[in-house]
Each structure stands twice: as C-alpha cells, then as structure tokens.
C-alpha cells in the first residue's frame, strides 16, 4: 500500500507541438480509489501509463510513497495494470496467465499456486483455471485480468478503461464488483475512464481532466454540487447540466425576461455575460402567473421512475435547449409550454469568458 504523488509530471510525444500532459500535480492517498475521467485525448490514459512506466516521464517526478519511481522500469515499480482489452496471453491457461508475473519474479511454485487459488476464489474463477482465454466470456476474461493484477499483491493497481469492452448489463455488475474488491483489498487504485457515470459511482475521488490539465479533483458529490468551471459542470452529470447564456443585471442573471435568482457571492462577482447552470432536477414547474422561464416541450423521455422533458426556452433571440426532470406520472406532452424556475442555492453561475465558477 502506498501513496502516489505526481509532481509536475510531463509527457511530450515525439513530433507534437504541445505536451500530451504538460505537468500534472496530483496526490493519491494510501488505499484510495482515484478515477481519472475526461473526454478522449485529455491525457488521462497517458497519465496512467506514466505511472505504470509504459510512457516515459519527460519532466517532473512520480513518487510511490517516498520512493521516486520516475525512471524505474515497469516491472520494478510494484504496480499492476489491468488493460482495456484484458491483454491475456492467448496460449496460456487462466492459471498460467495469473501466475506468469510471479513466475517471472521467481516466486516458488507452491507460493504461486496458493496465490492463484486465493485470487481465483475471490473472483469466482476456480472452475475456469484450466481454460484458455478464448474459451471464456468477456466478463470472465475481465476477471482473469483482475486476477492477474491481484496475485502480485502490488502497491498500486492501474486500470485503463477495464469495463469498456463489456455489454451494458455486465458493465454495471462488474463496476460494483471492482469497487467492492478494491475496498476489501485496500490497494491504492488509479482508474481511467471516459464514462462519467463510472467515475461517479466508483471513485473515492475523481480527477476531471481536459487537454492534459487537471480541472478538478474532488469527491463525486462535490464535483456534482460544486463544479469549479464550465467544463466540469458540463461533463459531470447525466443528463447534462443546463448551461444558459445570461446577462448580469443588478445582482441577478437575466435570460430574456426571466431573472434567475443567484446566491449573494455570485451576485457580487458577476459582470456582463455569465453562464447559468441548473441541473435538470433543480427546475420546479410553476404556474404561468408565477413567471419563470418558458419552455416549449419537444420530447418527453419516460424512464419509469422519472421522466426527462427536453424543450427549448421561449426566450427571443437566444433559444436554448432545456432539460427538466419531472415525476414519472406528471402529465406533460410534446408541444406544451411549461414555466420553470429554480432556487438560488441550486444555481451555478460561471464567468462565460473564463469559464470559472462565480457562485459560492
């Protein structure tokens, strides 16, 4: 078990004008499940691979505990990796796949057998130890890949989108399995995904990345409740947060005739053009007389437990797409015009130009 510290760690690819990772500072606590999330090309996988030793570090340092591992070869880092396509050796049995790293490390046969059996028990793979990878389902292969990491008892697990090759149902189940397993083993884990739902459900903390830069590192709920900038606000949450262009008028944000109530901190800071963020569940439907933002309904998605209403704001000049979560049996139909409003505490205000959060 160990902490992982990135100190201004950089990665430049040959021939590229800009760094893939221009210098990342990140501290991962002992036993923590840290998720790196972001869109494709944001540098999350590169960061993980730098930690694993599969990418060179072109500047800065990476520490494992107190040990500087920046230039240590991958095999000597005491880090195990789970790959996106599992990367199992096709000609070896499940047992041999899991034991291979131990064999390379010259662990005695008896010890190897014991550790493989233990990992197989944890992962429910006991019946498959003699099979080759091609005779396994996707979910089973995924577990073998996990088993291969577990048997090494490493200080850190690196996982690079390990669920992306599974079907939707399997992904949800395995997601829970991995989170539980990590909690049981208590091994520091760095997990890369582009799926924000995975990030939110699995991570103790989540690091949101864009263009090689960390945008915010926080607990899932804090990311959701207090996104530090427009990118995080738009990236975290599904359906996405409503982000509406507005103008600061006397401590309020005006979208056409509708004045959005904002908290005092934002009211003080905002000038000129601002972007107002409201989560779909933070809208309240009000009567026409009460004012609010008019929304013409274009689509209603009924999910059973609740429904999502998609519509366009009736503001002249700048019609924006609006998503509102309503109770499942509320009678809203395509073509209706709703009026919605919200409370100051649920409004996130961002500076449109810099993207920074202005709300408290």
């Amino acid at each position: 078990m160990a902490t992982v510290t990135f100190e201004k760690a950089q990665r430049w690819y040959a021939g590229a004008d800009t760094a893939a990772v221009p210098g990342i500072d990140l501290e991962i606590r002992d036993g923590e499940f840290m998720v790196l999330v972001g869109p494709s090309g944001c540098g999350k996988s590169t960061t993980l691979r730098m930690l694993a030793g599969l990418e060179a570090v072109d500047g800065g340092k990476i520490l494992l505990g107190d040990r500087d591992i920046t230039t240590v070869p991958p095999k000597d880092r005491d880090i195990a990796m789970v790959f996106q396509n599992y990367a199992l050796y096709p000609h070896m049995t499940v047992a041999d796949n899991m034991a291979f790293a131990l064999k390379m490390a010259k662990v005695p046969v008896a010890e190897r057998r014991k550790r493989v059996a233990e990992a197989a028990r944890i992962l429910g793979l006991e019946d498959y130890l003699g099979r080759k990878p091609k005779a396994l389902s996707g979910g089973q292969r995924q577990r073998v890949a996990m088993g291969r990491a577990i048997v090494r008892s490493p200080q850190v697990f690196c996982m690079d989108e390990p669920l992306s090759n599974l079907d939707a149902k399997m992904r949800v189940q395995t997601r829970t399995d991995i989170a539980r397993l990590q909690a049981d083993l208590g091994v520091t884990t760095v997990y890369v995904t582009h799926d924000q739902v995975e990030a939110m459900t699995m991570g103790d903390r989540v690091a949101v990345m864009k263009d090689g830069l960390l945008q915010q590192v926080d607990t899932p709920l804090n990311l959701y409740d207090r996104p530090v900038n427009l990118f995080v606000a738009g990236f975290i949450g599904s359906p996405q947060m409503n982000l509406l262009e507005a103008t600061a008028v006397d401590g309020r944000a005006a979208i056409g005739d509708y004045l959005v109530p904002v908290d005092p901190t934002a009211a003080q800071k905002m000038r000129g053009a601002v972007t107002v963020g409201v989560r779909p569940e933070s809208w309240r439907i009000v009567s026409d007389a009460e004012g609010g933002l008019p929304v013409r309904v274009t689509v209603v998605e009924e999910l059973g437990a609740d429904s999502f209403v998609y519509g366009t704001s009736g503001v002249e000049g700048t019609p924006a797409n609006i998503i509102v979560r309503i109770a499942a049996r509320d009678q809203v139909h395509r073509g209706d015009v709703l009026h919605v409003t919200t409370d100051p505490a649920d409004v996130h205000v961002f500076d449109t130009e810099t993207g920074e959060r202005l709300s408290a």
Partner: protein
Amino acid sequence: MNRRPGALVYGLLAAFVVGSALPLYWSFMIGSHTRERALDTPPPLLPGGHFLDNAGRVLNTIDFWQAMLNSLIVSTVCATSVVFFSTLAGYSFAKLRFRGSSPLMGFVVMTMAVPTQLAIVPLFILMRDYRLLDTLAAVALPTLVTAFGVFFMRQYLVDAVPDELIEAARMDGCSMIRTFWTVAVPAARPAMAILFLFTFMQVWTDYMWPLVALQKTETLQIALDRLALTGQGQSTDYALLLAGTAMATVPLLVLFVLTGRQLVTGIMQGALKG
C-alpha cells in the same frame, strides 16, 4: 451469413485444383510408362505399370539418396534460419520503436526488387574467395535470411500481436527477448509455419544457384538435370526424367501432409483471436 458458395466458385476452385495437381500427375503418369510409350503421340493419359522399373533406373543412374539428403539438409537449414531471423527482425520492425526503423524496412523491401540473377556473379566470387564452392554451405548461405521473410513476418506481427499484450509482458517483468518468446512467437506460429514451408519449397526447387555453386556435390535438382542429359545423342528419356521428378516431389508432399493440419488450425486461431 454462412451462404454456400455457388457453382461458379466451385467451378473456379475445381479448375485451380486440377491446374495445380496436373503437373504432379503428369510426372507420375509419364514416369510409369516405358521410354518409348512416353514419346507416343497422342501421349498416354492413364498411368502404366513401369514406375518401379523407372525408379530403379533412376537410382542406378544418379546418386539419388545422396542428392536427396543434400537437398534435405540445405532446405531444412535455410527454412529454419529464415524463420528464426525473419521472426526476430519482423518483430523488431513491427513492434519496437527505434531510430531509422522505417527507412531500414524500406531498404529491406527494396532489395526484393533486385533480381536473383544479378547476384549470381558476385556471390560466386564471394564463395570462391571463401573456398566454399562445391559445398552445401555455398548453396545455403545466400538464403539464410530473405527480405521477403522479414517483410512477411513484419506484416503478420503488426496485427497479430496487440501492443497491450507486449505492455502486459513488460509489466509482468519480461525482458525484451522473453517478451518475444512469450508473446510474439506463439502469435506468430501460423505465419512461421507458412514461411517455413514456403522457404523449404523455394530452396528445394532452386536450380540456378546450386548449378553455379556446385560441381561434384549434387542437390536433387542438379541430379535431375543430369537425368535429362542421359542417353545423349538420342531424345531425352522422359519416362526416366519424370519418374525421378515424381520421386523428388514426395518429400514435399509428406511435409505438406504432416504440417497441413497444424497450418490450417493455426490460421483459424489467428482469425478468431479477439
């Protein structure tokens, strides 16, 4: 899905099979007639009963077994060496990043465009200077590595070995050469088998270079050549020549039968790997 191919496909395949098998049948068929019958017009189309007689004459005329042993040695050495070095080089070109990798590969490919005949004189001089003329080493040396082999293995390994598998081996503590043995060689096995067969056949049937490099020592092709020249002054003894040719083909057939099954399953495994 899984539609049965139509008559046209079957027809083409059948024509291909017949076209490939015909020369083999022809050598055996003519080789099983008497010398005179072999020259008849129209020629016989069905096998006769004199193959063993002709085979006996072949063994009396040339040192068939010695020539076959020589061919076996040269072909096996060349095929093994080509597979070994081509797999190593192909893996390096396909998966290792090093300065000059692409131009070097380009150079290797370019050498394939040089006709073999162009190299014969310089090779002869080389072999003479090293005093290797008239030895099997002289026959084998120029074919120990082939540009085609390197190119073939590179093309195969680029797709057959996922980069992640190599990275997994690195994480598991494999050295570079161990990664090669553990990851690349098992994946390359079908291509290695094909390259082995291909090179074996190429060296087995090579005529030009052994003819230049050898004098008293004989490979099968050279010995067969001598069969064609027996009975000078008269017409060529086709029954004798083609009986010898049919006998010389037998080891190749045996090799195909022995490795064919592994070859096909190998290809299937490669195709199905996810």
